[in-house]
């Protein structure tokens, strides 16, 4: 319930601040774009959920949302509409030989019914087709407009049961859109569901906005705004819309990144003469300078243990990735392959570092596997890809790309590169994406 009022507040805030309906910036043109067949993907069927009340069913099709989640993470393949030949909604109705014949390993079934007060109860079951055993069963009660969130939470449970790691479908993403002509450009910072649905305007400006960074609890965003005429760092509470200036020093104030415990913010500041990495204690505002190289040092990212930072520096002539412990001791170069590497994203356990690798005029997202002798593999085709951002479970990444018409779009890609989903605006650019942390379901909030 608390979350709902937050959403409402955000919408009202957007209207109040900008006088424009949030629908102007609705994420449009969502398409699921399967790049490669994935022979090793796990076959799972999500049967459309039965609606068991007399009233008309809600417009959100819970099973379809779950099915899309399963597919876009790259670890599953699903049967689509006409191939789903039977529609059981209770375990007792499942005819296992049918699903064995269709070579399915898992089956998700469910049902919805009206429980009064405008609420819908969604019940679901996960079955193993081979053992014919129920693996999961559960239920959520929610308002119709929250059913997408319910579907993502069910998808997370299924993912965790089968893969053995937490799902990250019930999460949010932040990104920046630009609309309008060059003389009349408008920047908007948006927060949306992980699949691009339910976009909400966080801030809107006639000057550039970039580099949103999530606080670890998902309640705040730090970002760069040029509203004062130059770059400045702001920290904004998503629920209330209240914000404060973190740094508006002379020169660059940019590249925010929260420490894993949320008490510090790493950033790039150039008031000292060159862009260097600093860490600010958010309570006291005290700054500690980390790099002293007189070159460009930016894009700090925290290692999961909070003890060191990975950042981009051109101290060797070209941008490359370095790491440096907060306790001092100097920087170690991490990236050696390719002409230049920048804009890293570190997965949840630090075993993988995604980055933008540039070779000539081709910029692609590469993942360095630190457990496999720093082996690099590309997961995006280029030629102008950037801003990779890991989902909190490391199973997917979000990144920015420029399409053939010069338009900025986002892609969500499975960490094995197998499946890509495009997120685009009909009449504008989408850029600077950032994947948020795990989200606390509204029912679990105090």
């Amino acid at each position, binding site marked *: 319930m608390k979350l709902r009022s937050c959403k409402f507040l955000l919408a009202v805030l957007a209207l109040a601040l900008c006088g424009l309906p949030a629908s102007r910036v609705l994420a449009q043109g969502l398409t699921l774009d399967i790049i490669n067949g994935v022979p090793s993907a796990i076959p799972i069927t999500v049967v459309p959920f039965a609606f068991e009340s007399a009233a008309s069913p809600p417009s959100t099709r819970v099973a379809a949302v779950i099915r899309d989640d399963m597919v876009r993470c790259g670890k599953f393949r699903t049967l689509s509409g006409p191939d789903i030949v039977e529609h059981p909604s209770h375990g007792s109705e499942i005819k296992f030989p049918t699903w064995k014949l269709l070579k399915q390993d898992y089956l998700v079934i469910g049902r919805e019914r009206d429980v009064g007060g405008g609420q819908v109860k969604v019940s679901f079951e996960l079955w193993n087709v081979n053992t014919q055993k129920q693996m999961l069963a559960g239920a959520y009660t929610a308002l119709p407009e929250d059913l997408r969130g319910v579907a993502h939470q069910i998808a997370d449970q299924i993912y965790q049961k089968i893969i053995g790691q937490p799902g990250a479908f019930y999460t949010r993403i932040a990104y920046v859109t630009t609309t309008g002509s*060059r003389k009349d450009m408008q920047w908007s910072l948006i927060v949306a569901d992980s699949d691009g649905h339910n976009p909400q305007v966080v801030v809107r400006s006639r000057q*550039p906005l*970039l*580099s949103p960074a999530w606080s670890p609890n998902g309640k705040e965003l730090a970002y760069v705004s*040029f509203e004062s*005429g*130059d*770059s400045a760092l702001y920290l904004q509470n998503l629920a209330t819309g209240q914000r404060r200036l973190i740094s508006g020093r002379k*020169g*660059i104030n*940019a*590249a925010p990144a929260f420490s894993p415990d949320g008490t510090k913010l790493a950033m*790039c500041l*150039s008031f000292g003469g060159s*862009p260097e990495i600093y860490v600010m204690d958010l309570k006291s505002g005290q700054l500690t300078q980390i790099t002293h190289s007189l070159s*460009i*040092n*930016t*894009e700090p990212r925290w290692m999961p243990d909070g003890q060191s930072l990975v950042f*981009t520096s*051109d101290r060797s002539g*070209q*941008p490359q990735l370095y790491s440096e412990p907060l306790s001092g001791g100097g920087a170690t170069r991490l990236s050696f392959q390719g002409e*230049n590497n*920048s*804009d890293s994203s570190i997965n949840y356990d630090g075993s993988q570092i995604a980055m*933008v690798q*540039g070779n000539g*005029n081709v*910029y692609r997202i590469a993942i360095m596997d630190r457990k496999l002798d720093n082996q690099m593999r590309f997961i995006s085709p280029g*030629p*102008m890809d*950037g*801003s990779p951002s890991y989902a909190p479970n490391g199973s997917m990444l979000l990144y920015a790309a*420029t399409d053939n018409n*010069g338009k900025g779009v986002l892609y969500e890609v499975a960490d094995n590169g197998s499946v890509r989903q495009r997120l685009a605006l009909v009449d504008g650019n989408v*850029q*600077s994406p950032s994947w948020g942390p795990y989200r606390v379901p509204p029912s679990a909030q105090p």
Partner: protein
Amino acid sequence: MKTFARISLAALLCVGLAACASKQEVKPQAPEATPPPPAAPVQTAPVSNGKFTPADLETNACLLKRRIYFNFNRANIKPEFDDIVACHAKYLVDNPGARVTLQGNTDPRGSREYNLGLGERRANSVEQAMEALGANADQFTVVSYGKERPVCNEMTEACWAKDRRVVIVYTKTE
């Protein structure tokens, strides 16, 4: 209105002094990535003491050029832009109260944050060159937009060349 008055004054002075010889040497400009600005609407000549005045900002062929272009991932000023740097530096020396903002920009290749650094490096490079010619550090404000304000949206070298620029913006002319 002020500008108009000054232009009129300059024109009057010009008429009064009849065929005053040009003391301000304006060297021919090397070809650059963008078409040159339109020709000045009035015939001008510097006032007799050889100092630039605010009116010259509207009329002087060199001062009308406010963009300096760079090579990819570089911040050094190419020789063909030395004249532009020099005439604006002279203007700042001649008009100690004048203030400029140097806006650094990059092409879209590379990350947003790295390009903020690169844009600043380019603007700093222009500031340092002007200071070496006598302009005062107090006269400058540097803003880097990085790749956030492209002038061109095609993915071609010709387009990128236009993006890699420092724009000189006068915020106070005297």
